[in-house]
């Protein structure tokens, strides 16, 4: 049985000519991996990833990736994904990442290199492999920090990434910095910004993102600081109302995790600054919001894990309950669309290294991270709601 589909074309032949870089040597270094996840969601009120209030199988994730290292210093990595998530994603195939990596300097304790192309964004602990259920803490990511409505924007961007990893006896340091343009093809991005879909389009402009990750004792303690300035520009085309607009999104994320054999304690805190300027017809708006979650996971056995999480999202720190927002006559949206407090209890069963089944229940106050595409009438959203999710996932 092949756990790892690596093409060992001629290992025996190579034994005679070790060291020489041949075509076989280059071809040997190709890996293929894939994953498929199907989820079922049921909500007492409101819709998330499909018509979940009636029970929905709309949420699935399917991906395949390859990594080819033709020489010691060069790598090519590509991942294609088809993902459906109700009206917030459409199941079409897209390139999630595709980049060339060149290693500038490798020693037995450090690694320095550059990646060019579409690369995953190192945001907090969970963003880089967010579509692979096994790497998520639970069935759904904590939505206050990992908004699934803007998933493509968060996941990867197009540009140049520099990385530096330093490994020592007890302490490891990993640093990444990117200069890139964000992806903007999320169906939900315009509604989230403007209240409705607009005839024009949002395009990414020059942005930067950086993360420092410190790990003590091989990940027993993990600490990370992420900072970014992501910029988008509205190109109006034939939009009769909004003729221009610049969006700047500046999150700072602090992450901390403590791991023992049985326990995993995690917290992440984010302050998000959002500025929408140069709208001409509309006044500029600036918002500062806070997100955080606290999470405890306990391993009952090697394959069973139980998890409890509290996740909090506030859109506007100056109007935490959305009272001021609700009094605006132009946007007849209830105040509870401006926050979400989510308690989650989950159970995860790792059948083996390929198969995973997980389930969780959410008890939520507020609708701050729900999609307007799936809940088109905000006034009809319910403040108190529950969500049940179960996921079956396979990966190789």
């Amino acid at each position: 049985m092949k756990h790892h589909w690596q093409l060992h074309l001629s290992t025996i032949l190579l034994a005679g000519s070790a060291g020489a870089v041949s075509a076989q040597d280059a071809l040997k270094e190709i890996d293929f991996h894939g994953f498929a996840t199907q989820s079922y969601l049921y909500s007492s009120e409101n819709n998330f990833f499909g018509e979940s209030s009636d029970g929905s199988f709309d949420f699935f994730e399917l991906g395949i990736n390859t990594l080819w290292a033709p020489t010691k210093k060069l790598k090519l990595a590509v991942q294609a994904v088809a993902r459906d998530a109700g009206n917030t994603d459409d199941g079409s195939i897209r390139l999630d990442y595709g980049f060339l990596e060149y290693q500038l300097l490798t020693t037995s304790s450090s690694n320095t290199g550059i990646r060019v192309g579409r690369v995953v964004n190192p945001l907090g602990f969970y963003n880089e492999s967010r579509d692979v259920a096994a790497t998520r803490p639970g069935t759904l990511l904590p939505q206050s920090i990992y908004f699934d409505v803007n998933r493509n924007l968060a996941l990867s961007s197009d540009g140049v990434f520099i990385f530096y990893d330093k490994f020592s006896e007890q302490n490891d340091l990993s640093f990444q910095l990117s200069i890139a343009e964000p992806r903007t093809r999320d169906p939900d991005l315009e509604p989230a910004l403007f209240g409705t879909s607009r005839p024009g389009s949002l395009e990414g402009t020059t942005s930067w993102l950086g993360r420092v990750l410190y790990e003590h004792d091989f990940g027993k303690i993990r600490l990370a600081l992420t900072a970014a300035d992501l910029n988008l520009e509205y190109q109006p085309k034939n939009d009769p109302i909004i003729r221009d607009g610049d969006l700047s999104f500046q999150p700072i994320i602090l992450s901390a995790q403590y791991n023992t054999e049985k326990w995993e304690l995690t917290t992440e805190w984010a302050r998000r600054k959002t500025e929408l300027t140069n709208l001409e017809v509309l006044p500029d708006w600036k918002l500062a919001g806070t997100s955080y979650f606290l999470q405890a996971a306990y391993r009952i056995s090697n394959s069973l894990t139980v998890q409890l999480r509290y996740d909090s999202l506030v859109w506007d720190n100056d109007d935490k309950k959305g009272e001021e927002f609700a009094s605006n006559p132009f946007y007849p949206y209830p105040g509870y669309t401006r926050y979400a407090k989510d308690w989650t209890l989950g159970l995860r069963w790792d059948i083996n290294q390929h198969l995973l089944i997980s389930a969780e229940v959410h008890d939520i106050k507020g609708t701050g991270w729900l999609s307007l595409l799936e809940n088109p009438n905000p006034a009809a959203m319910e403040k108190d709601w529950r969500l049940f999710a179960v996921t079956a996932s396979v990966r190789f």
Partner: protein
Amino acid sequence: MLAVYKQDKSINNTQRIAFSKKYALIGFALTLLLNTSFSGAVEESSSHIDESKENSGQRKESIVVITNLMTQEESIAVHNLRSIFAMRLRRWGKEDRLEVFVLPDDHPTHSSFTKSILHTFPHNLRRIWDRRAYSGTGQLPNVVSTEEEMIEKVSNTPNSIGYVTKHHYRDSAKVVELER
């Protein structure tokens, strides 16, 4: 109004695409399930039972790190070994592009290797591997089902590294000394 109309149309298309994709997904998942996972799980668990009976008790002392006979290096620092088995560094002295072999996550020898030599846990290693393999930044190690297969692969693959319990060791591979 225009915006709303555009939106509705896209939803219809979306649902049609999603519907056909779903069948593709179910087929894909079933194939994987039958081909890789179940056959593997049965194989692995039956071999574990034999080995755990044999070795219960003093497993901790009895694991050796092994490498191919052609490897020039004789010893390795534990923190370098950690980086190599985490698949984040494939270099060891003069050796480059190391081939890493491991036993399945729930194999008792893998468990005691990660605990007593790497000073971590199988689930931590798995998480490190997955995070890298699914973000395009790293590779997964080669998984072998039994210790016999481990010895055979390391003996026959240049630039390779693995581990076995002492009584499975044969001199077709070389024991690596751990630097304390």
